């Protein structure tokens, strides 16, 4: 392998390769996938001068450690964390130069869940259906990183970063998700629909890239027959038989047989990706645009 490569010294709890995902194949059962916190991934790419479609690393809670084989420019964003190069603290949320063979340690998230690591040139694993994203539902794309994985890097462009540091939103202390009702809100009792947008929920520890699971009042069905499988969108709030709403994130299944009570605004999903288990959640009904 050439020296345009990145060795994984510590993979962390769950670190995956992510880009803009593979939309356009839902009719074949292929999830869209892609970075859960899209704005954070886009920002770190800009900080190292990458194109928006370059693949980055998405960590989960406890970061990762990487050793590039040649000098690279790196930026870490998303969930704030301590970043070191060969043990020396360096800036989070800003481009930094990592020498060949140095150890870049992306520490545990201080707040939030997912940090993003962009490397100049991007992670250059083989694309699948036009995307390098790991899809945890269907197993497309590269498997999650393991200790010892070596990732190929793309050729760094000569583009200079257009920003030196950039403000990033803090992970939410309370997750407020704006929702538009339907398409199956009429499958629930009026009391359940009221409870959904007025009572308090919490982020469940069972949340993952497929869905943000919640704990809180169970939503009672008015229609109890089975729903024939139907297509579902990103941000759909599906209610399984236990009555606890699940917000579909990037690796969600493309069809589902449980009713969708509402859909979360796409602009609110990056915050959902950063909400740690236990975070209070409020679903707020808004008018459709």
């Amino acid at each position, binding site marked *: 392998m050439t020296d345009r490569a990145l060795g994984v010294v510590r993979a962390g709890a769950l670190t995956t390769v992510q880009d803009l995902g593979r939309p356009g194949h839902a009719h074949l*059962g292929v999830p869209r996938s892609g970075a859960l916190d899209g704005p954070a991934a886009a920002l770190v790419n800009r900080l190292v001068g990458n194109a928006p479609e370059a693949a980055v690393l998405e960590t989960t809670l406890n970061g990762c450690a990487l050793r590039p084989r040649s000098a690279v420019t790196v930026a870490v964003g998303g969930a704030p964390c301590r970043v070191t190069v060969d043990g020396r603290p360096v800036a989070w949320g800003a481009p930094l130069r990592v020498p060949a063979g140095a150890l870049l340690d992306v520490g545990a998230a201080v707040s939030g869940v997912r940090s993003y690591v962009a490397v100049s040139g991007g992670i250059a694993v083989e694309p699948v259906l036009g995307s390098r994203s790991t899809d945890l539902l269907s197993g497309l794309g590269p498997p999650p990183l393991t200790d010892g994985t070596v990732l190929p890097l793309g050729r760094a462009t000569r583009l200079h970063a257009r920003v030196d540091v950039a403000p990033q939103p803090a992970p939410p202390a309370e997750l407020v998700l704006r929702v538009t009702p339907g398409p199956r809100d009429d499958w629930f009792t009026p009391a359940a629909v009221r409870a959904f947008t007025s009572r308090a929920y919490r982020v469940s520890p069972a949340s993952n890239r497929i869905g943000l699971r919640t704990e809180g009042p169970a939503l009672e069905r008015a229609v109890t027959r089975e729903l024939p499988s*139907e297509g579902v969108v990103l941000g759909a709030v599906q209610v399984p038989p236990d009555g606890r709403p699940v917000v579909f994130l990037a690796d969600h*299944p493309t069809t589902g047989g449980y009713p969708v009570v509402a859909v979360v605004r796409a602009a609110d999903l990056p915050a959902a990706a950063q909400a740690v288990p236990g975070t209070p959640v409020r679903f707020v009904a808004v008018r459709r645009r």
Partner: protein
Amino acid sequence: MRALPVGDDALLVEVASGEEARALHTELLRRRGEGSLSVREIVPAARTVLLDGLADPARLASELTTAVVPPAPPRAREVVELPVRYDGPDLADVAAHWGVTPREVARIHADTEFSVAFCGFAPGFGYLTGLPPRYDVPRRATPRTAVPAGAVALAGPYTGVYPRSSPGGWQLIGTTDSVLWDHTRVPAALLSPGTRVRFVPVGNS
């Protein structure tokens, strides 16, 4: 036909039957092909077609409520033949549900022409319809933690083939060596909505 808004930029169009869903899907693909419909995803399902990534869903919704959808054209596409051994562990249970012998299950299944109503569950997994309603079977009470790739299975009105090993609650009646999904192949999915399918018995089954 009813068009339900889904979020800010999608529509779920509900129709009365699987056949109407097929006709609507065909019409929407035609419109997209000729450039009069701009949409990111068209996802057919049992009684619906989802349109995701629309610029003006409200306008399309009002247009669709009065639209006349021509019936889907006869299925002109080639038939995909899947060689199958009727050796599944649930063959006897399915035979009991149908009130026939396991050998009869194989004959009835292999004599049926199926078509892919829609895909989902996993890349390359098609929900195949074609069996008459009297052959509907329930899902297994307890799903298996691992169903092998190539398993031919029944649930409700559908037949499906597991593209890769995964958990599953369908009744397993046979096995095929066909590769349902290969992302290095073009197209990656052997089956897509509308594909006609026949199961061809091989071996001693």
